[in-house]
């Protein structure tokens, strides 16, 4: 395991950070969160074509950039810091599951178009039961036709292509799971944009009324498991970035804000809150980065480590969000102050792919306790 980034990885981080500083300042985040599409297509194409972020971690022979989950984690940390509004997480979900589930040639075909920014794809997994594991799939695939509903589909409203998890009629658990590809405007598909608590990440509900779709995998459980592990790692990294950005904002404000003739950051109440927060943020970063490394080196403990990281980062980000508002005082609760943007990302991502408590239980189960 590596505990330090290589110079190339640090350069990559700098490049992503510079890009996001330019293209995703808070004003732009505010513009895009009110935009129905939720992202700027030009910026997204640039991210894909100039920075190669589209399918960063997918092997080259499957249409990706051939970097590792470590680089993916770096990108997500930075996106969490900048609160990027773009179909990035959805692309990671889509390209990962396709690369894992499909035969090489088919994977390359689908992934390379997503990676080039030519096509937006979304993974339609979760349903009304709110479960994030493959076993929660209830939508039926029957003779190449899909019947059922998906919800919480990230960027599902804007996707050109849907990758749909389904199951054979009568099957349960991890048996009988399949993956299907279908154009988002195919007959029988109804999509609606959901009102998201975090307006910087769009969610859709999608109904499938006997929709003809191409099956790309009829044994989808392993690919979905792996995809969810990678997704948890990515969101853990993102949340570590969110937490870090919030901490920095709180500390900056505590240095400037005067009350009772002193900077509020000179009061131990604030000072010690920041110190505790730094510790929690650093621990969360370590956990997220370690999990990313574990994915990179194909550590067999990845499921446990991904759950550990997701739980740790979600808790750290929520604490950072709460503390950042508290340290700002009243101003931190206003719409014009940017803190709530990160707060809402933290709150929403806290439950995305499972609550911290759910992941802690999964960590124990994976550790065979």
């Amino acid at each position, binding site marked *: 395991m590596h505990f330090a980034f290589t110079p190339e990885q640090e350069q990559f981080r700098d490049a992503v950070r510079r890009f996001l500083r330019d293209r995703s300042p808070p004003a732009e985040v505010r513009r895009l969160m009110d935009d129905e599409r939720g992202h700027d297509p030009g910026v997204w194409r640039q991210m894909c074509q100039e920075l190669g972020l589209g399918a960063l971690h997918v092997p080259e022979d499957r249409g990706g950039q051939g970097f590792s989950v470590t680089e993916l984690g770096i990108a997500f940390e930075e996106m969490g810091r900048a609160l990027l509004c773009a179909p990035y997480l959805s692309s990671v979900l889509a390209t990962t599951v396709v690369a894992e589930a499909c035969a090489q040639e088919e994977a390359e075909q689908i992934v390379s178009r997503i990676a080039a920014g030519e096509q937006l794809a979304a993974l339609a997994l979760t349903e009304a039961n709110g479960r994030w594991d493959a076993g929660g799939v209830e939508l039926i695939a029957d003779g190449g036709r899909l019947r059922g509903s998906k919800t919480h589909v990230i960027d599902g409203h804007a996707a050109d292509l849907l990758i749909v998890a389904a199951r054979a009629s009568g099957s349960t658990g991890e048996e009988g799971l399949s993956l299907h590809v279908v154009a988002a405007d195919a007959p029988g598909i109804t999509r609606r944009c959901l009102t998201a608590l975090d307006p910087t990440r769009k969610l859709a509900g999608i109904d499938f009324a006997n929709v003809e779709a191409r099956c790309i995998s009829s044994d989808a459980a392993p690919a979905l498991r792996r995809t969810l592990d990678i997704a948890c790692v990515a969101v853990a990294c993102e949340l570590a970035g969110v937490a870090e950005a919030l901490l920095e904002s709180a500390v900056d404000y505590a240095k400037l804000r005067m009350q009772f003739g002193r900077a509020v950051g000179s009061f131990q109440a604030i000072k010690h809150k920041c110190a505790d927060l730094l510790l929690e943020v650093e621990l969360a970063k370590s956990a997220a980065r370690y999990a990313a490394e574990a994915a990179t080196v194909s550590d067999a403990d990845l499921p446990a480590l991904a759950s550990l990281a997701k739980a740790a980062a979600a808790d750290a980000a929520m604490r950072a969000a709460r503390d950042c508002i508290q340290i700002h005082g*009243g101003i931190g609760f206003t719409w014009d102050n940017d803190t709530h943007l990160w707060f809402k990302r933290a709150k929403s991502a806290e*439950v995305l792919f499972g*609550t911290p408590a759910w992941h802690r239980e999964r960590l124990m189960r994976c550790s065979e306790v």
Partner: protein
Amino acid sequence: MSETAPTDPSADSVRREVREWLEANWDPNEDLVAWRNLLADSGWGMPVWPQQWHGRDLPQALAPVVEEEFARLGAVGVAKTGIRLLAAATLLEHGSDAHKARFLRRILTGEDTWCQLFSEPGSGSDLAGATTRADRHGDHFLVNGQKVWTTSAHHADYGLLLARTDWDVPKHQGLTYFVLDMHQEGVDVRPLKQMNGHASFNQVFFTDAVVPAENLVSAVGNGWQVAITTLMHERRGADGLRGVQRERDLPGRIYEQEREEIAVALEPYKWYPQRAGRVDLVLERAQATGRNTDPATRQEIAKLLTMARSAEWTARRARAAQQQGRPQGPEGSLGKLASSNIARQASHVHTLIAGANAMLAGEDGDLNGLIAEILISVPATSIAGGTDEIQRNIIAERVLGLPKEPRMDTGPFRDVKRN
């Protein structure tokens, strides 16, 4: 503990007197303002106030008797919504006779609405650090600066203004208290939107706003003492948001008018129950979603119920002690701190219960967005009305007697570091 007032002879005679008066005068089809003018004349609207000023000089202990008789008949009382009674209590204690003559009656009748102009962007926890200035020009003062968190400023007729008149003395000594006419060009009220989308408060900007010298309350430089009176009444819950809603929609013109008045006054507070965490919804939500079968969630719910119920019992202990004649102390700060903890834990529990649906808001969210509103409103609880940090200082210093911190703001205000 009995909820009824003492039944000593004076209580009985007061009860008889108010009952007779009400039976003779109460009419649910009366006009609201006309009725309240009657109350102001009779003294029954504020019976503990001085006889000279619309009251009857009754001792506080007998007030419940009068309230009970009003309640028995469903008779409407004086206007209590908004910060009217804070204004009235402050003017009663510190105002001149001219102030009382001019302002009190229209407060009681509800014809005038008031707002409180204390907080500033630069002085949140540190109210005495106000930098809005009032400079004397002959027979009036010119006010410049900015206030914030002002509830109802957009429809207020008058504002209770705390402004700095002297920059060369320590900060508490350079403040003066004014009654400011909100209807003038130099006053610009703008709504302040919160992170939950509501805009319950306002920012108020002053550009050469004019206050005639006769609107000065108490004396120049005595503003902090006057403000403390207002704040103490506020802490006692005299802000008129409790107990104003009638159990059912009674028929009669006066009730209609009262309902309208209350609706306007309560509008900014409609998200306050969500801010407090809506503990009341937890068990039924857990059962409805099936999360009540999850042991980890059960632990968190039990922690929440333990905190919430214990806090309720603690408040009732404090009230019972008060009824036994012990003075109310800073236990309010304990309750405030508890409510922050409860709101935070409630938000945590609602998140666990909602699971994936915690990502949704508005019509798509659980309970039509109510749960989402809890999640994004709770952070206000530990800030509004004095941050948790300020409450902990108050508790530590005033209840536990721990020593104060060294102060860095005791010199002339001009030299105090500020934003």
